[in-house]
């Protein structure tokens, strides 16, 4: 039985206000009878739901595929499989180019063009002439075959009145962030044909600021991984290669976003950072990766991996571009219940405006903390060298270096790998292929009459790493293990937070009032640093062949050892590339390492500022 819901109807329904759109959409689906196959098959509703998506996506994917093959316009197939970009077109528009496009795309009935100027069909397309169209406007245009084309007009910095620092700039979006116009697959088989009916708040914010979504980027499935190899679309490859010319890991899970930035295919990219998923790829690809304080950027429309840790992160070539994007996204969103409210934001602001804290950004030298526990044996010499040189560089600039102790760090990684999978096992329970997503063919439940309706669907849809973490989380939440694992890990998390609070000169803005008396004595004996500087990862990027299938997951987990503590504490942290100069004669032999700056909660600006002091430095040993 097939509903006659057509593509255009679906679009019309889904383009409205989110909830109303869903209601209308569900109403249509409701008309379709749900059906069990045999005694224990699946519900027709799901099947039908995915059929709708099937049709729409088939068109989209055809378009993308043809864009690879026929056009080859500015398209880099960097990573094998689907690396990142779907619709990257940035060239001057003329009627000729449009005509060319249309010639090769007769099957297209939905298409998004990005033009560099407001006027798309004239000679003077570089001029931002408001008369014909305005930035962000979508123009329906019928081509000579009678099918509709959609042109999206955007302006860039050449326009006289840019809306914002990112007006007209291309931003890549990690594919676990919902976009209405592009599929959101989370690199998972279970969502491989899924398109969200709504935009994430951060996507809306960027588009409202004039930015253009460059495309969706590859990732570890649902953000679970450290090398972007656990993807339905294949592994992401780093642009850099090792001395033997072998492929290197781009880091994960936001590897696609990092490579898109490294390859200059976008101005900046959005990623998500749950335990280091933005910072680690930044370190491996030589880009800047920033994880803001938890709760500053909206998570509405960001597919949850571990809600209490998930943070939207930003990747860019430079800290300045990261800051441009951050300033647009750093706003309250009522739809995300974990988002910091406007009143709390002003509390943080007034807290930071206290003279002692305000001066850190202007005049006074900074107190830099060096966590002794981070000097682990697994640290490779080149990374240790980069760390030392960075500290030396900061010292040269007049800042002071202070050893600090973060004793709970050694338990942080274990705590993270209990908490994140626990939340993941809960969050991923919704993927059953019933209301959306992909169902396995044929009857489900392994042929057991009383079996679950989606045993096969989940078994086939999720990759190995996701299944591993779901099992881990299911175990640690089970009645017998709860106390020893989940509760214990929450305690460790509290200790990690206390560790940080004990070393930072600035009090946690939300704990400031409560803690001023209680910890007054502790504070005087503590190191009282402004930021902590440490490596992002213990080693340079490993070979892709070493981290792909077959290697122990524990080896991959170790890469998160320096990034996880800031995640557990919800603190702002940035990874910036620092180059260790091997020799003047042979710059190709230079080692690039990611150096991480961690600040107190709310000190996002300070963290970015210190990152800027180090970013791109080529330091001599």
């Amino acid at each position, binding site marked *: 039985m097939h509903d006659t819901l057509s593509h255009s109807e679906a679009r019309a329904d889904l383009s409205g206000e*989110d*909830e109303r759109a*869903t*209601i209308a959409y*569900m*109403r249509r*689906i*409701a008309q379709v*009878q*749900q*059906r*069990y*196959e*045999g*005694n224990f*098959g699946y*519900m027709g*509703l799901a099947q039908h739901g995915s059929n709708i998506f099937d049709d729409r996506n088939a068109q989209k994917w055809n378009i993308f595929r043809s864009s690879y093959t026929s056009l080859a316009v500015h398209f880099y197939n960097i990573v094998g499989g689907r690396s990142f970009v779907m619709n990257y077109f940035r060239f001057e528009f003329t009627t000729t180019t449009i005509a060319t496009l249309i010639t090769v795309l007769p099957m297209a009935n939905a298409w998004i063009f990005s033009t560099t100027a407001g006027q798309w069909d004239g000679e003077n397309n570089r001029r931002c002439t408001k008369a014909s169209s305005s930035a962000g406007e979508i123009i329906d245009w019928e081509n000579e075959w009678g099918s509709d084309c959609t042109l999206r007009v955007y302006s860039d910095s050449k326009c006289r009145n840019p809306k914002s620092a990112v007006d007209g700039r291309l931003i890549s979006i990690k594919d676990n*962030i*919902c976009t209405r116009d592009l599929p*959101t697959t*989370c690199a998972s088989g279970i*969502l491989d044909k*899924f398109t*969200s*009916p*709504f935009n*994430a708040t951060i996507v809306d914010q960027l588009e409202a600021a004039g930015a253009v979504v460059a495309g969706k980027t590859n990732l570890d499935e649902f953000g679970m991984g450290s090398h972007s190899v656990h993807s339905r679309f294949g592994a992401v490859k780093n642009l850099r290669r090792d001395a033997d010319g072998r492929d290197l890991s781009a880091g994960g899970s936001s590897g696609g976003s990092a490579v898109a930035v490294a390859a200059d295919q976008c101005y900046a990219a959005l990623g998500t950072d749950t335990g280091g998923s933005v910072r680690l790829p930044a370190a491996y690809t030589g880009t800047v990766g920033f994880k803001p304080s938890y709760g500053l950027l909206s998570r*509405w*429309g*960001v*597919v*949850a991996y*571990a*809600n*209490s840790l998930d943070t939207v992160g930003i990747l860019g070539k430079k800290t300045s571009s990261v800051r441009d994007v951050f300033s647009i996204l750093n706003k309250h969103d*009522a*739809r*995300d*219940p*974990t988002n910091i409210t406007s009143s709390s934001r002003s509390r943080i602001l007034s807290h930071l405006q206290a003279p002692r804290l305000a001066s850190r950004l202007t005049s006074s030298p900074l107190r830099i903390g060096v966590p002794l526990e981070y000097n682990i044996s697994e640290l490779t010499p080149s990374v240790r060298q980069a760390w030392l040189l960075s500290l030396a560089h900061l010292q040269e600039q007049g800042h002071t270096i202070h050893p600090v102790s973060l004793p709970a760090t050694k338990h942080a990684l274990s705590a993270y790998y209990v908490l994140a999978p*626990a*939340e993941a*096992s*809960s969050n*991923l*329970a*919704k993927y*059953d292929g*019933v*209301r*959306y997503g992909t169902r396995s063919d044929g009857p489900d439940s392994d042929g057991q009459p009383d079996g*679950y*309706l989606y045993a096969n669907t989940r078994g086939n849809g999720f990759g190995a790493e996701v299944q591993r973490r779901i099992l881990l989380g*299911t175990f640690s*939440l*089970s*009645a017998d293990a*709860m106390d020893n694992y*989940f509760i214990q890990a929450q305690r460790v998390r509290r200790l990690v937070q206390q560790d940080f609070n004990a070393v930072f000169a600035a009090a946690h803005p939300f704990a400031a009032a409560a803690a001023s008396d209680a910890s007054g004595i502790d504070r005087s004996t503590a190191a009282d640093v402004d930021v902590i500087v440490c490596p992002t990862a213990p080693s340079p990027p490993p070979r892709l062949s070493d981290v792909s299938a077959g290697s122990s997951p524990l080896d991959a987990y170790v890469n998160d050892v320096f990034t996880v503590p800031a995640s557990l504490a919800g603190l702002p942290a940035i990874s910036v590339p620092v180059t260790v100069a091997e020799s003047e004669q042979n710059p190709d032999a230079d080692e690039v390492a990611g150096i991480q700056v961690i600040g107190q909660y709310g000190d996002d600006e300070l963290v970015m500022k210190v990152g800027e002091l180090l970013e791109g430095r080529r330091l001599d040993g």
Partner: protein
Amino acid sequence: MLRPWPSGAVRVLCRVNRPFLARPQVNPARFPSTRSLQSAATDRVPLRKQLKQEAKALKAQKKLRKESEEASRQDWELTVGVEIHAQLDTEAKLFSRAPTSTSDTPNSNVALFDLAFPGSQPEFQAATLLPALRAAIALNCQIQPVSRFDRKHYFYQDQPAGYQITQYYEPFARNGYVDLFDYDGIAPEDGDRVRVDIKQVQLEQDTAKSQEYPPATQLLDFNRVSHPLIEIITMPQIHTPATAAACVRKLQAILQACGAVTTGMEMGGLRADVNVSIRRRGEAPGQHQYDGIGGLGQRTEIKNLSSFKAVEDAILAEKNRQIAVLESGGVIEGETRGWTIGSTETRRLRGKEGAVDYRYMPDPDIPPLVIGEDLISSLTESLPTSPDSLVTQLTGPEYGLSIEDAKPLIELDDGARLEYYQDVVDILQSLHPDQDPQTHAALTRMAGNWVLHELGGLLTKADRAWDDTIVPARALADLVDHLQQKRITGSIAKQVLAAVFDGDRRPVPQLLKEDNLLLRPMSREEYVALAETVLAQRPEMVEQIRSKGQLGKMGWFLGQMMRLGEKGRVEAPKAQEVLQELILGKQ
């Protein structure tokens, strides 16, 4: 006298009939219709005889069952704990702005979060808290200043997220109680009052509504997903099936009285699970405990009971099953069981090995619920009077009603009948501000009788729903007043009420006057004359009364006097008096 019920209000008010729960082998009347057909065809027992036999068998069985129940009660102690799920009366769902609805087109009121779309997040609707708080206050609970939401995980297609958001670790209300009285229908062995403690009340989401079309189709309506529910968990302190049913009924009445819920069990707005365990009296306490009460036998849980009768029947059946298992040397398994209406035994749904580990986890997206003292106190103040205090008030000196009249007054028409009654009493009060308490009580009792039975009777007969404008309170008050003042007779009062009910809008005093219905008392002479006329009709009967003392026959003469006399003028007591005098002489 049968109490009239408006057809729309299907409510169980008084004690339900003790359920007929016979074992199959001793149940000859299990399929009465088939049986009577067969018997009619074969041995041709006269219908009347057959009915008599069946009634007799039923009676014998009831007696037998009662005796065996009593015997088993002597040997075994039953313990029951009740969990109630009640749909709250709210506009929006618990975690989305989608409207709640029970009758809208399926899947028309659904937000992204209700369907667990990737990237969607909960948005707690603070207004849903109000009915929940009213319920908790009405159940005498301690409202917790801080409570939290947890995820309860299990896979089922009516559960879009794969988990239900509930309050497991820190519910919003604890330590309440509900008092059950004899008039609530508790078992006689429980005396006239039982207090059942309430362990906790928690807020949670409802699931989607499933509709099964066997063998292969199932429809899902997500309108119900995330409809706010409260779950009320009582302590295991109930020891008879009847009291358990009374407890559920009372909880429903309280929830409805405080406006926390819209519909009751009959509309599916309330569902009950019961925990049942037994233990042999006089033996060492059992090894099991739950909800903080120990010394119990192994319990089983019966899920999803959807009527008061089902609660009572299922507990009785499960108790008997457990006794049978234990008496034959078996062991009770901790398991979940189900109950089908009309069956005689609970059925196993899943055993211990199939028990679901719900993996309760604090919901990381939902902030704690902080409830201020000011909110609680303002809600407490605005809470309507509880049914129990209303009963006390109505049966107290002020109204002097019987419990049998007080309960339906309170429960009928969502309290509208009671309001009407109070209006009538207020008007009567204003007519006679200086009445002595005795006369006042007689008046309020009479008013109660007329509001419930006379007016109710007319409603039933006409098959009309309650409406306080059909017979204005003023009209009924005037009528009752005239009657009590003996200015009209009872039959005239009924006649006038019927006229008003049928739309006569004239004020009652005017109506009585215009239609010449006011009582013109007959003189003694008139009575005597009338009496003599009727006595003359049957002199032999007069003789029988006099000689054989067959006083019962006096009624016939009285009837004749009422019939022959001028309509509305003969007052029965006076006529009786005169008759007695004439037949038996002055006493």
